[in-house]
Structures are given as C-alpha cells and as structure tokens.
C-alpha cells in the first residue's frame, strides 16, 4: 500500500530524481561512524524544536506567571516533566554533539579548502546555539535563572565603550525584569530559530555542493565511495536512537527541579551556570581586578574570531593529523585547559554542601526554635526583632554570638529575646549558621 501511494505521488511529482540526489550522495571512502556527529546534532536540534513547541502550549513569558506555568508543566500536565526533561537534557546533549562534531572536523582537517564556508557557517551555528542556551535559561524565572542571567548580562557589560549600551538593550532597561523576560522569550522561540534554520540549510547546502570530506587518509579515500543510503543512514539512525535513549533516561532518572521563584531582592542566592559555561565561569576566578575584562569578553571574542578564521590561519592543504603538529597540539591544549577548568569548577560546586555539617544543623535549629517568629532571614519571617539576613556583617565575632545565645541581654542590653534552652553544641551550630549570613 505505501508503495502504491508512493507510485501515485511519484507519477505526478517525479520524486525519483529527488530521491537519487538525497540518498545516493557518494561518500568518499565509504560510510563511517566518524560521520555521525552532524546528524546527531541535527536530530537533537529537531528534538529541541519539537519539545520546545510543546512546552509553549502552557508556558507564559511574563514575570508574574512564568514560574507558575513551568511548575504547572512540571507537576500537573500529563508527561510535562518528561517533555521538560527532554528539552533540558537535549540542550546539554546538543552541546556535546556540536563539540564532538567540531573536534572530528578539526582533527580530520575537514575545514580546509573547499569547505571553509561550511566551517564558518558551523561556527556561527555554535554561537547561535549558545544564544539558545543563554536565553532559554532565564525562561523558568526561578532564582537560578534570574541570578545566572544577571551575571551573564553583566559580563557583556565588561566590553569597553559599547558594553553598557548592549547590557541595556539586552535587559530592555535598567533592571532585569518583565521586558527582559519577554525579549529573551521572543529571541529563544522566534528570532534564533529563524536564524539557525537558515544557517543549517546553508550548512547542508554547502555540504551537498562540495560533498563530504571523506577520510584524511589518501589511500582509503581512493578505494572508492559508497552511497549515503543505506549504510550511513543506518549508522546515523543507530546513533540517533542511542542519543535518544540517553536523553530520555536522563529525563526520567535525573530530576531537574525548579529553584524558588526569582526574587530580585535576595542577593544571597549563588547562581550556577549550565555546565557548558562552567569552564568560563571558573576562568573568571583567575582574572582578578584589571585582568577581569580579558577573561570576561576578550578571550571569548578572540576564541570565536580564531575559530571563524581557522581555515585562513591554517592554510596548508595537509589533512592528516600527524602532518599538522601545531594545529593538533593547539587543539589538544585547548581541550586540556577546558576540561581542567570544568573539573576544578565541578569539584568546587560539589564540595560546598559537604563543607560543614554544623551549618546544616544550625539551619535546622532555626526552624526548630521558630526563630522566624520574630526574625526575618532573606525575606522570610516576621519583622519584630532584627533582620538576620546579613547579621555576620554587623557581628562577625563568633564569641559574641555564643555569649548572645547564652544570655541575650548580657551583650545586647535591653534585648527582649528569651534565653533559649540550648546546649553547647546547639549554640555552636547556630553560631556557624549566623556567621554565614553575610553579603560578601
């Protein structure tokens, strides 16, 4: 039945020549597992587009509703948590796929003539994809979204002369707010998709005009070629299926909870960027003072310029990695730096919660003794006794707190805070917590 339908359509539209062009593209040296990364990236992009469209059924890009709608998707819509999980992990997957795709092209020397334009468009696609990651991160409007975007936008401000202006344009004003959210949303779901679809089409158009690069090994390339269909298509399908399995397993097993709703007044929140921005996040820590702008924008700008110009910097026609020691060393060096920074950053991130069990006990004691009945801590609690949000700024002395918990009036004359029945360990734990409450 499908074949009869196909014949019927074919008689009218003459699909055979089109089929020939699409499927019988010759691949020099034959199909290979090395060539699957581009298809994997394209597949993940399709998955992002699809899941994104479905998320838009319920999402509302306004500061008073965005968080609630994402929570609604996550908790109440059937399958919503899964579709959001696919979109979240798909975004990470696409970065991995692009990374592998670029490494394969780089080490295989496939960016060399006549494929320079394909490489340049590819670098632009990478930039657009990072744009997707940055704009999409704000949309759930939780604490992490708000503060990570705040940091990201401020980094643009380090660009001399025009930085301040760009920051205002990105935010649509003085502060990150309703207008920022709606423009990030529009960029994420309309402008970037339009741009990237054109870029992808151009990328593929160039691929079909110049043909795939094939192996860097001359002898293998000379053995002849194989058509794209069916073996390369099969390899692509196997990899896409594997990628889909990984992404959906992550979506099912690793929950991606929302943080609290964005609170612009809570400066105590420490945002963490997505892992693919982490190496840069770590790099910023090594650039104190005047060196700061170098890390925030000069290095990234140089990196992207270098990538764009790569086919013109590396002009030798030689493709085999062993004949290109400088480029290969540069590439490996870059990888070592990125992964070292990423490793250090991850180590720091996961070390924080393990640091001090005393702190966790102190936080629990604040709940147990209902300190918030009188004190406010970061916007939560009554305003009867002093706000403790930044108490360590005023009272950095450990002994003062210990004495104060034992007998409040002894160090703070006139205090109406009762003497709570606390043992020494409890006083110590509470003091540990109090000393973390500072603005720095």
């Amino acid at each position, binding site marked *: 039945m499908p074949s009869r339908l196909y014949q019927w359509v074919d008689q009218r539209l003459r699909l055979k020549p089109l089929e*020939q062009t699409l499927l*019988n593209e*010759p*691949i020099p040296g*034959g199909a290979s597992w090395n060539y699957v990364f581009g298809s994997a990236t394209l597949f993940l992009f399709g*998955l992002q587009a*699809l899941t994104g469209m*479905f998320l838009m*059924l*319920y999402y*509302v890009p306004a500061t008073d*509703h965005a968080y*609630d*709608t994402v*929570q*609604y998707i996550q908790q*109440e*819509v*059937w*399958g*919503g948590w*899964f*579709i959001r999980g696919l979109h979240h992990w798909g975004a990470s997957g696409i970065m991995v796929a692009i990374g592998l795709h670029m490494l394969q092209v780089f080490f295989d020397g496939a960016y060399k003539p006549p494929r320079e334009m394909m490489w340049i468009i590819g670098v632009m696609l990478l930039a657009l994809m990072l744009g997707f990651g940055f704009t999409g991160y704000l949309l759930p409007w939780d604490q992490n979204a708000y503060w990570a975007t705040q940091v990201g936008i401020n980094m643009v401000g380090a660009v001399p002369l025009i930085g301040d202006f760009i920051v205002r344009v990105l935010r649509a004003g003085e502060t990150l707010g309703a207008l920022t959210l709606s423009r990030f949303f529009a960029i994420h779901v309309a402008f970037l998709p339009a741009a990237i679809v054109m870029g992808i089409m151009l990328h593929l158009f160039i691929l079909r005009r110049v043909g795939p690069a094939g192996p860097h090994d001359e002898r293998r390339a000379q*053995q*002849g*070629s*194989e*058509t794209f269909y*069916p*073996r390369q*298509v*099969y390899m692509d*399908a*196997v990899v*896409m*299926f594997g990628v*889909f399995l990984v992404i*959906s397993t992550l979506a099912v097993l690793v929950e991606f909870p929302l943080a609290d709703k964005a609170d612009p007044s809570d400066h105590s929140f420490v945002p963490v960027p997505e892992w693919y921005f982490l190496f840069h996040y770590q790099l910023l820590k090594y650039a104190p003072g005047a060196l700061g702008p170098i890390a925030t924008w000069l290095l990234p700008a140089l990196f992207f310029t270098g990538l764009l110009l790569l086919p013109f910097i590396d002009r030798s026609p030689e493709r085999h990695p062993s004949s290109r020691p400088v480029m290969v060393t540069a590439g490996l060096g870059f990888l070592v730096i990125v992964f070292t920074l990423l490793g250090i950053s991850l180590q720091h991130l996961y070390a924080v919660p393990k640091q001090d069990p005393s702190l966790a006990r102190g936080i629990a004691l604040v709940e147990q003794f209902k300190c918030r009945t009188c004190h406010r801590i970061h916007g939560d609690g009554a305003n009867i006794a002093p706000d403790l949000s930044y108490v360590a700024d005023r009272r950095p002395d450990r002994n003062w707190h210990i004495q104060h918990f034992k007998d409040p009036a002894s160090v703070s004359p006139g205090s109406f805070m009762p003497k709570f029945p606390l043992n020494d360990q409890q006083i110590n734990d509470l003091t540990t917590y109090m000393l973390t409450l500072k603005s720095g």
Partner: protein
Amino acid sequence: MEEGLSTPVGTRRSFFVKTTMVLSSLIGISLAIPFIGYVISPALRRRTQDWVALGKVDQLPIDEPQALDYLMTVKDGWQKSQISKGTWAVKHADGQVTVYSPICPHLGCGYRWDRQDRLFKCPCHGSVYDINGAVQAGPAPRPLDTLPSKVENGELYVMYQEFKSGLSKKVEL
C-alpha cells in the same frame, strides 16, 4: 547515479534499511505517546467541585427569589483565582430551597427576577420562566437549570455547575 564500490546490496542492504526504519519508528512512538498525553490531558480532566456556603436558610424570604452571590476559588489551568458567582435561590412554603444557575439555558445570558410580574425574564432574547423554572414564553429550550444544593445546620450549600446552552436537555459542561 552509478553505485559506489562498497554500497551494500541484497540482504545486507535490507538489514540496514529495516534497522533504520525500526529505530526511527521507536523514537517516533516514544515521543508521540507523551506528546499526545501532554496535549489532551487538560481536556480529559473533570472539574472537581466542592460545596460552597451561600448563607443561612432562615434569612431567605418564602417564595421570593433572592440573588445570592458567593466567592469561590477557581483553578483555571495554572491560575487560581477567587471569583464571584451568582445564583438565584427560592425558598418554598415547605421550607425546601431550590437554587438556580444564574445562566439562561437558551444562550447563556444572565436573567432577572421581575417582582411585579413574578417571573424570571431574560433580557437578551425574551425567554420567560415562572418561579418553578418552567418556560412561560420565548425561545428557551428547557426550564431553568437547578444546581445541586443541601442544607446543613441551617446553612445553605450549593455546588457550582455549568450546563450547555441551547439544548432541550440539561448537559453539564
């Protein structure tokens, strides 16, 4: 186009073709199921309704319909809002209370109680009902819609419902 040297043929070729089709179908199905459920689930969800207090039965005059409003929390998708709903309550001589939906069963306008004529009148298309909800005139296809109600400890409770308009039978939305 001439086939390349190593392009697979025969059973080997059909293995690649079939595997490709099976794998892509698997991806398609595992996406289609959550996508379909995600889209249609709000359509399948029934509204759950609670009893809402309208007021003391004692305070209702006999055979004189009263417009009773109440506040209820409505979940509209991800939004929760307090909205005011109206009803028409009639206490009969035997103490029984009938509560009518305030929406005309004809096309959904709000009707009023005319004290002089002792009739419910809908201003939109001229439907007229008596105190028992029966149609007296106009295009209305059915009597006024009654809402489930009960009296507990002298307090009148009602359960809010809406019905499809224009039908000769009462069908809940």
